[in-house]
């Protein structure tokens, strides 16, 4: 059996198990077991992938298989992975498992929580392992809709508003996407001159340039909404919470794999529009974060900035920047998940998320605070952590474009790093260092085993990638060959 199919079957079985489970204990055990198994399967995929490559298999996509679905319309479920998707599958499995662990003590409707979370996870996994537009779109929407329940039921603050806004904005994004995707289908020609959804076949046959000019913006905006592309980022500050971070990777990956890969000429022609927009995202997000006092909003704006950087890098259209973009996706995915997990833990104990109301937490919550510092340092790009590797590659890649326009926006974006340092260090200083501000905070409960495990699951890869980035970036670089071929390099 195809190993990729396994990655869809495990979540499906987990969901079935969750439906049958009862009480508080059973659902979380089922969810943890299922996602633990998925985690192992993702590692197995990684090793099988590396083994195949080591044996000299240089195909664009590995483990490909095609299952007929709607034959009259030539729709099939096409599976396949390259280095980029393997890395992102690994990331997703880590983030979802950590998500299950940190939600271990879910009091309110635990079974429904895990069902929603794992449905979302299924969507993300499916999106990464499919190489046909129909299934990718299906899984994309499958990942978006559970967020309505996740934020609406278990979120905090104005959650009904946030949930509705996020769902509608992302679905509006998918409206653009659907039009772009059907356009690609009807202007494609497969091996037997039929229309096809398979992205490798579309890439091989090519799309007429005048059509690319119409469908590239649609597709890029469609995925860009999920990647918090300015001015479609407004869902992000309200909607972000720990659970949906796995989903924000879909946006960058979709832009990379669908918009740029299938429509390279239009991408080269029209990238300037989106470079301006993503440049805005990067700077706007960073400055937005400075002004916030609520931890959740600080990190949500910071996430807008980082996601903007991912899209910015993708639009640089060269190998180094692509590599940086993928690394940034992974790094950002881990970091944001860690941030929101930690914020959740702190909120549970202190019942506040306002930075000024906390102080000296490092003394009472050493583990959580230390993890927060690590996440913060990774976020501002300290060498030795994952953020540095990613951002360095992005800016080196961006500087490879010699013209003034690219230079100008690159320099502007680089300056966002300085701003990032300001808001990260300020939070660390106010909230974690110094004397204890609130007397009641002196007796806060230390992190429990599931919180520690969940956080460590995220901290270890952040440090791991920072210290030994080469294997990962080699794996990604190797898989950039097809897209570079498309771009004509």
């Amino acid at each position, binding site marked *: 059996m195809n190993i990729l199919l396994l990655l869809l079957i495990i979540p499906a079985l987990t969901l079935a198990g969750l439906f049958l489970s009862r009480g508080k204990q059973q659902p979380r055990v089922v969810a943890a077991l299922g996602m633990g198994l998925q985690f192992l399967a993702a590692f197995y995929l990684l090793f099988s992938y590396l083994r195949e490559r080591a044996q000299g298999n240089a195909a664009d996509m590995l483990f490909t298989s095609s299952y007929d*679905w*709607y*034959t*009259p*319309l030539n729709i099939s479920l096409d599976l396949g992975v390259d280095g980029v998707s393997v890395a992102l599958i690994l990331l997703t499995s880590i983030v979802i498992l950590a998500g299950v662990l940190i939600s271990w003590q879910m009091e309110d409707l635990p079974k429904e929580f895990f069902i929603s979370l794992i449905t979302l996870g299924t969507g993300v996994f499916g999106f990464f392992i499919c190489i046909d537009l*129909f299934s990718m779109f*299906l*899984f994309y*929407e*499958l990942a978006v*809709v559970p967020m*309505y*329940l996740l934020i*609406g*039921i278990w979120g905090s603050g104005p*959650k*009904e508003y946030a*949930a*509705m806004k996020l*769902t*509608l904005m992302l*679905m*509006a994004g998918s*409206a653009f996407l*659907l*039009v772009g995707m*059907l*356009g690609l*289908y*009807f202007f494609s020609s497969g091996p037997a001159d039929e229309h096809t959804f398979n992205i490798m076949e579309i890439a091989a046959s090519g799309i007429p340039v005048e059509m690319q000019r*119409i469908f590239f913006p649609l597709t890029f905006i469609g995925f860009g909404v999920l990647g918090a592309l300015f001015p479609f980022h407004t869902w992000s500050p309200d909607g972000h919470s720990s659970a949906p971070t796995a989903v924000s990777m879909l946006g960058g990956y979709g832009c990379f794999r669908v918009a740029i890969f299938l429509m390279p000429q239009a991408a080269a022609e029209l990238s300037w529009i989106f470079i301006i927009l993503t440049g805005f995202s990067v700077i706007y997000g960073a400055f937005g974060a400075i002004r916030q006092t609520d931890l959740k909003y600080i990190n949500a704006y910071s996430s807008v900035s980082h996601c903007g950087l991912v899209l910015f890098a993708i639009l640089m259209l060269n190998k180094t920047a692509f590599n940086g973009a993928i690394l940034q996706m992974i790094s950002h995915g881990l970091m944001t998940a860690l941030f929101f997990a930690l914020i959740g833990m702190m909120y549970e104990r202190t019942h506040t998320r306002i930075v000024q109301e906390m102080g000296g937490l490092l003394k009472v919550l050493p583990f959580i605070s230390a993890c927060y510092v690590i996440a913060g340092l990774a976020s501002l790009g300290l060498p030795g952590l994952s953020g540095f590797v990613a951002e360095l590659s992005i800016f080196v890649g961006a500087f490879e474009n010699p013209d003034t326009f690219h230079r100008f926006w690159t320099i502007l974006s680089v300056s966002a790093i300085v701003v990032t340092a300001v808001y990260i260090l300020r939070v660390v200083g106010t909230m974690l260092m110094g004397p204890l501000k609130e007397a009641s905070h002196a007796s806060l409960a230390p992190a429990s085993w599931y919180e520690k495990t969940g956080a460590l699951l995220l901290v270890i890869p952040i440090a791991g990638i920072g210290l030994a980035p080469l294997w990962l970036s080699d794996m990604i670089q190797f898989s950039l060959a097809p897209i570079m071929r498309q771009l004509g390099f």
Partner: protein
Amino acid sequence: MKWDDILLMRHELQLLAVILIVTCTEIYLTGKDKARVVPFAIALFTLHMVAGWIKPEEGMWFGGMFRTTPLIHMRKNILDLGVLIVLLQTAGWVKKQLVDENRVSEFYLLLWSSLLGMYYMISSGDLLMLFLGLELSTLPIAALAAYEVIRLRSAESGIKLILSAGLASAITLMGISFLYGSTGTYAIPELIKILSGTSLENLGFLFFFAGLAFKISLVPFHFWTPDVYEGAPTGVAAYLSVVSKGSAVFILMILLLGLTPGGMTEIWTWTLYVLAILTMTIGNLFALRQRNLKRFLAFSSVAQAGFILLGFFSTGPDGMASIIYFVLVYIFSNLAAFGVVHAISVETGKEDIGDYDGLYRANPLLSLVMLLAVFSLAGIPPLAGFFGKFFLFMSVASAGMYVLLFIAVVNTVVSLYYYLLVVRAMFLRKSEAPLAYFKSDAWMRASLVICVIGILALGVWSGVYEYIYQLCV
């Protein structure tokens, strides 16, 4: 006349037999025993439905006035399925309300007569036959809408329906007479040959179309929909929104795709283009502010009718297949939603969306069915509604109408908002006084199980679509 010819009219004759048997049976039952008619009627109808699937034949009868093909068989079977689900959903209500009033078999008589009219409508090879079918299918529904005569709203709903339906029929008849006047024939196969697209013919078509548009409740012929749905018994509203609408869509297919081989003429393309946009948009905008769930579902069904129109733009078999498939999917999704509304309204008498606050915590299974139903209506994967809408969008895209496609897709996002309002009430909100837990009767549960299976399986399993597609080629 041969024995084989009678078999062609199998659906109609069977149903007629079922009607007569049920009506006669009631004579022998008195008082409380009349409740036994309900299971008997459902059993007979199930038998009829199953028999409908036996080997479809192709042929004509009565000099071409009646014709049938495997595709027409399929359409009748789809309607049968919808009616069966409606029968299951109304069983509890019939037993609770109608037995005492001694009006049980009449309910079935009227419902099935209207179905019989639809059969003839779908099978007609002749405009007069079509008109007879149309009348037979509409008039009994007006009686059904007013079935709870004691309630003022029900009586009002019946009057509204019969007045608007009367107007629509008159216009249709006018259209038919124009067509007859300009071509000199009623027979559809001959019409196809003679039609040359003169203004009189176009006008005739337009009038004819208006009558059908009324039944599908396309904008601007939709004004009766919310009032009638709200007043009519819920089961009847469900029947109106699904079966009656489905049958009219099937006729429209015969009319537009059958009478204009090789694609619609330009006039029709643009008429439908505008109507599709209007219907989707206005249906959606009005649905946004509804508090009563039956009115809400009425406007949502207006919007869905707009989506159905999208399938008409494709010239290939995929357009036709996507319409039939969507109607099938719509039967399951919409009837699941109506079923839940019906169950709650029969049990508690409440139909306001505010009453659904915190429903999930009180009655999880019912809320789950409703969740699946509205998500399927909104087109969320992997539910059947997603595939249904996707194929309709594909047929628009295949005609190269990307602007229409974009408007349609944006409309699905708008519709998602109000479908999510239902989810919000059930799942996100908490209520001081939620509806108490209750267990609906076995018939209702059976109907909801059928709907849920349909919603879950129809999309992921491609067999049904492929079967329909083969019939359409």
